[in-house]
């Protein structure tokens, strides 16, 4: 028997979505041209997209109603140059009927989830690497650069190589004070920064059922830190009820065939995962928090498209409430991933509680994530953050060190002023 997968074998979710969007029998390794359902740019990528668009010499935009721009990286604009970029974006998009979200509406990826643009079975590209977040709602969502986005705005299409798929089975239940972020970090530590390069991660297994859309979006979000083209969850009742609250659309829920061909099978037992931490300056430099020696923490950051959701602040508060306040010499900052999250945590009292404890709140958006706006750490500062990247200089200062952890671990550090296992907080 031949080792090459026969054309009669089943398909992964990625192969099925790309088959549907290209009209071809898309199999891993094929190059296909696909019609796009949703296109997203940010204020970080749209200015160059406009430049490419103009240089490509096109006048028409295909399906402008499918395109949105989030003003999230400079939210609010920290200087004259970025305020000018916002103006250019509005001037370009207005007459062309492209939606531009307001400063403070939030991060593009979060808005795609909340506004019903990320639908099961849909094909999404965004000029931002964390577009993969939308895989939490069963979309094939991947990041591209500004030039690809410009070409896609003109043609309504993109060429894609159909990725091989790694099957990630999640089983067991998380133990107390262990969070989905710990699962995500454990997976990055296992697969490493290029372990899923050019491939799709397909999440599956009995533990998926009990995961919220926030949990799924977080795991999908971190998939690009392993080099993945996308991270996709199945569509189920959790997906449906999330969408029902937000949109009349239900998309085209897409599951894998039982005889689909995978490049690798990975199993994670959630019950065996302890709180994890990614040490500076690599996302895949992951160790259990119990292995970390005394590290003073000067800045605690709860935010970004990985960790700025309502559930993240709630989880942090659960730990913060047990202590007598944020340690002196440590600042704790919350940046909601969207305006609606900000509204939720305002109306449920969480925000007032956090502010009362001495916490700082920034405008919804990317905030301090990549040093483009918001608080910037000083020299020699150690930051613990719910973000997805800790590269040297990532938050705007190459002389700071960033540790990535769960909201619970971040909160535990806020109380003690040093890296602390959240299970030790009583």
């Amino acid at each position, binding site marked *: 028997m031949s080792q090459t997968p026969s054309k009669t074998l089943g398909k992964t979710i990625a192969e099925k979505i790309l088959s549907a969007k290209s009209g071809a029998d898309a199999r891993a390794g094929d190059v296909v041209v696909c019609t796009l359902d949703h296109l997203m740019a940010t204020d970080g990528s749209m200015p160059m997209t406009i*430049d490419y668009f103009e240089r490509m010499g096109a006048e028409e935009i295909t399906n402008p109603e499918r395109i949105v721009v989030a003003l999230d990286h400079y939210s609010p604009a920290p200087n004259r140059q970025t305020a000018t970029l916002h103006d250019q974006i509005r001037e370009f998009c207005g007459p062309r009927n492209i939606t531009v979200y307001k400063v403070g509406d939030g991060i593009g990826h979060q808005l795609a989830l909340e506004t019903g643009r990320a639908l099961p079975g849909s094909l999404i590209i965004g*000029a*931002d690497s964390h577009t993969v977040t939308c895989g939490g709602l069963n979309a094939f969502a991947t*990041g*591209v*650069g500004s030039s690809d986005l410009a070409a896609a705005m003109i043609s309504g299409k993109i060429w894609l190589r159909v990725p091989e798929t790694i099957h990630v089975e999640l089983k067991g239940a998380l133990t107390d004070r262990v969070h989905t972020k710990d699962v995500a970090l454990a997976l990055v530590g296992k697969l490493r920064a290029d372990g899923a390069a050019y491939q799709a991660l397909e999440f599956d297994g009995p533990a998926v059922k009990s995961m919220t859309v926030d949990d799924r979006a977080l795991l999908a979000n971190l998939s690009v830190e392993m080099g993945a083209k996308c991270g996709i969850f199945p569509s189920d009742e959790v997906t449906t009820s999330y969408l029902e609250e937000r949109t009349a659309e239900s998309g085209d829920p897409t599951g894998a065939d039982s005889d689909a061909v995978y490049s690798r099978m990975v199993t994670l037992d959630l019950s065996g995962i302890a709180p994890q931490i990614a040490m500076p300056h690599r996302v895949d430099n992951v160790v259990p928090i119990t292995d970390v020696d005394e590290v003073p923490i000067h800045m605690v950051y709860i935010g970004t498209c990985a960790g700025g959701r309502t559930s993240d602040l709630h989880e942090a508060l659960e730990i913060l409430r047990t202590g007598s306040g944020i340690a002196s010499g440590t600042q704790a900052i919350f940046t909601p991933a969207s305006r609606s999250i900000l509204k939720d945590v305002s109306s449920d009292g969480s925000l007032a509680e956090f502010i009362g404890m001495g916490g700082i709140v920034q405008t919804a958006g990317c905030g301090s994530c990549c040093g483009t706006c918001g608080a910037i750490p000083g020299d020699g500062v150690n930051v613990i953050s719910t973000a997805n990247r800790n590269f*040297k200089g990532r938050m705007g200062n*190459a002389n700071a060190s960033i540790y990535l952890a769960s909201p619970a671990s971040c909160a535990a550090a806020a109380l003690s002023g040093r890296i602390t296992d959240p299970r030790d907080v009583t």
Partner: protein
Amino acid sequence: MSEIAIQGRARILGDDINTDYIISSRRKRDSLDPEVLRAYLLESLDPDFAASVKPGDLLVAGKNFGCGSAMEVAATVVIGAGIHAVLAKSFSRTYFRNAINNGLLPVICDTDQIAEGDTLSIHLNTEFNVRNESKNQELTADPLSPVVRSIVMAGGLVPCFREHGGFPAL
């Protein structure tokens, strides 16, 4: 264009060079002009690197070059510095696409034997021909898929769209 020929001096980098290292996101706040940004090329890794780059130099990296953010300035800044090709064991998919689209040649080959300052030559017509002239060694480069090759030969996605009014026929 039916042929690309590049020769230059190897500048060695490590594994997993992310786009924030190539150009800090923070720098984009002030300018998107590669002529301005080139002064900050790879500054988080080595503040003296940018000043040491001579036009025509080639970047030579380990695996997963260009991981992290998909920001396209990380490709245009390299071109702005006068660098026409990057050789690496592997690229992140977003960097690979951005490089191709801007006419920066991404060459996938085993870079272990290349030393700082080696003279490398790259020829591309239907196939890649990559040589380390200093060591008199041939390097085997991964072939480009037809769609990628046609964008490369057009000089990038802008000339490709201007010429064909869209993607090259697949």
